[in-house]
């Protein structure tokens, strides 16, 4: 018998660190400890310290430091989530905020605590590297990766490859502006690939391997643009080489004279798709391709560091779920709205809504995090995913155990049946936290979700995405909202401008401004009237967005402004 030492279990759904990765992270924590010590001692000025703290995800907000922690491709394990809960309890105000880029933020952090927090994070293989600054940020991914029925390729191994490749990249850490990559492996775009600096869609190649669709130059902010399609046949072995070429062209030619024109979208628009493609192709042809080649052995070695779930459901799992649904209408509704079909028989993916009626979208208390970590251990292979809609997902739940999961969630105010519905709102931090804000986004979200709290009403209204930003930087993705809400400042008063018709998905579009901005106290009513107008005019199974696309803005304009 070979005397092999049993390998420690690898985390399901994400790359498992080894000793080399841990040593790297420890070096990084020590580097930052040294920098904080120099800052506190006064040998580093705030000016000099700022870029260093930003490289470690530490922002100075309106009232305190905010620490943004990377959740690579949105996948956490239960041990990590428990550590986040612990940090929230010990160093913050007992809660954390899950973000639209699948990360987690703590809003009330003390500078002197940050080295210890980063060390604690490093203990569970987490960090805050490149969650800020003009570098390649955390790569985002489909929240149903590796589980969804409609998926062609599990994109997380490639997301991990991109995470590693972009970590302290020597050439691309001081780009003209921040750089965001999203990757999906499903034809149904759940990552907003066309609203990213680079969007990748993995699919099977004719030779049986993997190849990628490449989108470039999408983004929100003051100049919302839907990304252009660069190519549909990027072979896996050229993934890194081609991205090197794409980002290098941007590093060389992207504008640096005006931060509002510095994203790659502006460069792609200025050069034209063809012009940009030519430059990338020239770079690609000139570079040392062998050096940047991604061999299949490397992909396999990284894949081998991912734990995989051992999926075995009892034969009657589906039947048991059916029985539970028939017996409990509230559960039945939640299953309709908060689950996604799984590729394996007897399994299902469950979405935990962080959008309770009247709550702050994306916030979770430490007690909730602990509970979800326990549920993940018990029912979902210890794996938790963060969605770009600021909810959480248990990816692999046995159908016969879903009822128990739901009951536990309900006891912790985590079972709002509103995924994809009007209560599932994205809101940026806004004036409650952010020094750039014109207006408070969070209270509008709270009022809307309270107004539309009834699950029956939400289901009747059907799929609709409301997204709120407190200023034109569009952190709340309002441009991509079926209904977008943008905070503007009118002579010191908070006003809100409505946009209609945006969409983040495969049918990506940028919302159009409906009319003059509304005062805060009129905004929620105006949205209620928009929804009423939709309910009157929709036909068949039309979503709000479809009705808007079919009938145009006039009717909605009347609904909002006729009575105003």
């Amino acid at each position, binding site marked *: 018998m070979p005397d092999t030492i049993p390998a420690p279990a690898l985390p399901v759904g994400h790359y498992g660190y080894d000793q*080399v990765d841990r040593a*790297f992270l420890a070096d990084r924590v020590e580097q930052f400890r040294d920098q904080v010590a120099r800052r506190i001692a006064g040998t580093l000025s705030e000016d000099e310290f700022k*870029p260093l703290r930003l490289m470690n995800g530490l922002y100075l907000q309106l009232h305190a430091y905010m620490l943004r922690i990377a959740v690579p491709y949105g996948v956490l394990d239960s041990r990590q989530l428990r550590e986040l809960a612990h940090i929230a309890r010990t160093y913050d105000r007992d809660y954390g905020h899950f973000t639209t880029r699948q990360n987690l933020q703590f809003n009330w952090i003390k500078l002197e605590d940050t080295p210890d927090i980063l060390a604690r994070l490093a203990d569970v293989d987490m960090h805050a590297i490149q969650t800020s600054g003009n570098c390649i940020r955390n790569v985002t991914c489909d929240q149903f990766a590796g589980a969804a029925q409609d998926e062609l390729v599990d994109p997380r191994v490639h997301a991990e490859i991109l995470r*590693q490749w*972009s*970590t302290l990249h020597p050439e691309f850490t001081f780009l003209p502006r921040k750089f965001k990559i999203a990757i999906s492996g499903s034809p149904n775009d759940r990552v907003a690939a066309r609203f990213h600096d680079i969007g990748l869609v993995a699919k099977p190649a004719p030779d049986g391997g993997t190849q990628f669709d490449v989108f470039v130059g999408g983004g929100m902010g003051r100049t919302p643009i839907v990304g252009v399609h660069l190519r549909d046949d990027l072979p896996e072995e050229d993934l890194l080489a081609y991205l090197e070429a794409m980002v290098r062209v941007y*590093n060389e030619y992207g504008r640096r004279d005006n931060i509002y024109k510095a994203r790659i979208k502006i460069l792609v628009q200025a050069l034209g798709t063809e012009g940009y493609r030519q430059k990338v192709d020239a770079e690609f042809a000139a570079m040392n391709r062998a050096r940047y080649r991604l061999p299949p052995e490397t992909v396999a070695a990284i894949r081998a560091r991912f734990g995989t779930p051992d999926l075995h459901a009892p034969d009657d799992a589906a039947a048991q779920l059916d029985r539970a649904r028939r017996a409990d209408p509230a559960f039945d509704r939640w299953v309709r709205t908060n689950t996604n079909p799984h590729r394996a028989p007897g399994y299902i993916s469950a979405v935990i809504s962080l959008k309770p009626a009247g709550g702050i979208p994306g916030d979770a208390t430490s007690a909730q995090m602990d509970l979800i970590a326990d549920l993940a251990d018990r029912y979902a292979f210890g794996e938790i995913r963060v969605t770009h809609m600021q909810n959480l997902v248990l990816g692999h739940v046995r159908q016969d155990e879903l009822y128990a999961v739901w009951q536990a969630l309900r006891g912790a105010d985590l079972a709002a049946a509103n995924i994809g519905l009007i209560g599932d709102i994205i809101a940026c931090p806004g004036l409650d936290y952010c020094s750039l804000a014109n207006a408070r986004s969070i209270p509008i979200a709270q009022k809307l979700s309270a107004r539309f709290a009834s699950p029956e009403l939400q289901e009747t209204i059907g799929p609709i995405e409301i997204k709120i930003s407190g200023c034109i930087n569009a952190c709340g993705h309002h441009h991509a909202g079926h209904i977008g809400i943008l905070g503007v400042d009118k002579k010191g008063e908070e006003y809100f401008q409505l946009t209609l018709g945006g969409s983040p998905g495969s049918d990506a579009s940028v919302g159009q401004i409906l009319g003059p901005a509304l005062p805060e106290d009129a905004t929620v009513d105006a949205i209620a009237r928009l929804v009423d107008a939709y309910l009157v005019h929709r036909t068949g199974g039309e979503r709000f967005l479809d009705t808007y696309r079919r009938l145009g803005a006039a009717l909605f304009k009347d609904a909002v402004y006729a009575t105003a």
Partner: protein
Amino acid sequence: MPLLENGRLVPDIWTILDEEAPFPATGPVIVPLSRLEEGLARAPGEKLGVAIPQDAEIDTLRTVLPRLSLVAVTFPIFRDGRAFSQARALREHLHFTGEIRATGKPLPDQYEFLLRCGVSTVDLPPGSDPEVWARAHTRFRTAYQPSVLGERAEGVTLRRVL
């Protein structure tokens, strides 16, 4: 200004000319890009370097590169990362083997990046503590991507041993 190579201070043999200064009779000089022709007109035995601005196209140096012993790239502010790409293009596209010198205001925390993009020496900005730079040089033992230094890969992983 103090010159750093491999994390250590080294003597600087180069004379740096601005737009007007006269050429010394002999000895290595670094000329601004606008005076490259003048520099090339010197005796072929004299070592010549050129200082390029951060928006210069590296490809324009292709034909003169065999005559150059040094190219100085610059960081007018540390956030302007174009010189990283210039250095890498010099090494990777034009196979330049001479000295690449970083000037301007890079941060010590960028030292490893500079080296991995092909920079060989750093003209330390005023007020720099060479100790901090030296420490930055030994901080990390691993990188996660190939570079022009061609470091050894660790097995089949993406990791490189620094």
